[in-house]
């Protein structure tokens, strides 16, 4: 028999996933040098591509009580979108409904650790908050032919009557997956897996060829 007693651990460990010092974080499209393409590549076209790289992404899972809901709102600064397929987009923070008990929180890369720490300090009950920044990246696609490009890539109905601004869906995208949010009539956000980012970037280049692709820094 061991005389060691196991205690329920009260402290929650939060690790800052951002590299410090001389180590520079690289987006999964680092090798593509999008900045140079943006500068030297075509400046006009029907599809515009921009990588919102190195953002802070947190997955929140819980079935919030009324008290938890108001606490979440005070911690995030915005209310959780409770209706299926809805989202909140503010200046400093975006929240995407992912499933009835799951939300994706997007902040600036440096803010993820701070928000995570604050959340773990103040929040209690049955929940999980996980930093998934390292496994994802965000593409922003826009332009007069962006819907045509997306139609080649996903079976989701993108007509404005079915897919209004603010709607968010997780779906199949070019044999991979993406969480698609409509930010404006002709502007969409794609949250994609880091390991699929290069493949999807190649796919988007191919799907955009007939409309002309413009890379935005």
């Amino acid at each position: 028999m061991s005389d060691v007693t196991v205690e329920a651990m009260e402290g929650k460990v939060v690790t800052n996933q951002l590299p410090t010092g001389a180590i520079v974080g690289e987006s999964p499209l680092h090798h593509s040098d999008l900045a140079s393409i943006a500068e030297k590549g075509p400046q006009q076209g029907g599809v515009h591509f921009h990588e919102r790289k190195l953002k802070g992404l947190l997955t929140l899972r819980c079935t919030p009580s009324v008290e938890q809901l108001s606490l979440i709102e005070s911690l995030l600064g915005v209310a959780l979108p409770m209706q299926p397929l809805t989202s909140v987009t503010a200046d400093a923070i975006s929240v995407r409904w992912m499933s009835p008990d799951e939300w994706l929180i997007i902040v600036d890369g440096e803010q993820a650790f701070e928000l995570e720490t604050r959340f773990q300090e103040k929040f209690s009950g049955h929940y999980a908050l996980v930093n998934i920044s390292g496994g994802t990246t965000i593409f922003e696609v826009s332009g007069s032919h962006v819907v045509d490009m997306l139609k080649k890539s996903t079976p989701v109905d993108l007509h404005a009557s079915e897919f209004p601004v603010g709607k968010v869906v997780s779906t199949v995208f070019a044999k991979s997956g993406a969480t698609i949010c409509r930010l404006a009539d002709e502007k969409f956000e794609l949250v994609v897996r880091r390991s699929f980012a290069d493949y999807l970037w190649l796919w988007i280049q191919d799907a955009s060829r007939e409309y002309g692709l413009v890379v935005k820094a």
Partner: protein
Amino acid sequence: MFHIYCPHCCEYREEEEFHASGQAHIPRPLDPDACTDKEWGEFMYFRANPRGIHHELWVHGAGCRKYFNITRNTHTYEILEVYKVGEKPSVVANEAK
């Protein structure tokens, strides 16, 4: 195009986003250690394979990743209803045959 209604996303989505996970309403024995080999074997491996109305567990794998139930006619492929796990189906096979 074949669309399936997800009761969690509350809309129809393309079949490609879903995956069938076999027969629904299979309760796990409360005390597995008390099961006979026959009882445990039937829970683990034996599934109904009806021609006609069947209750199936599906998952919205590429979407919200939630499980839900579908009552489906295995003969015509018609989906007769979709309902959440924990709910009872309103369409059931006529047992008197």
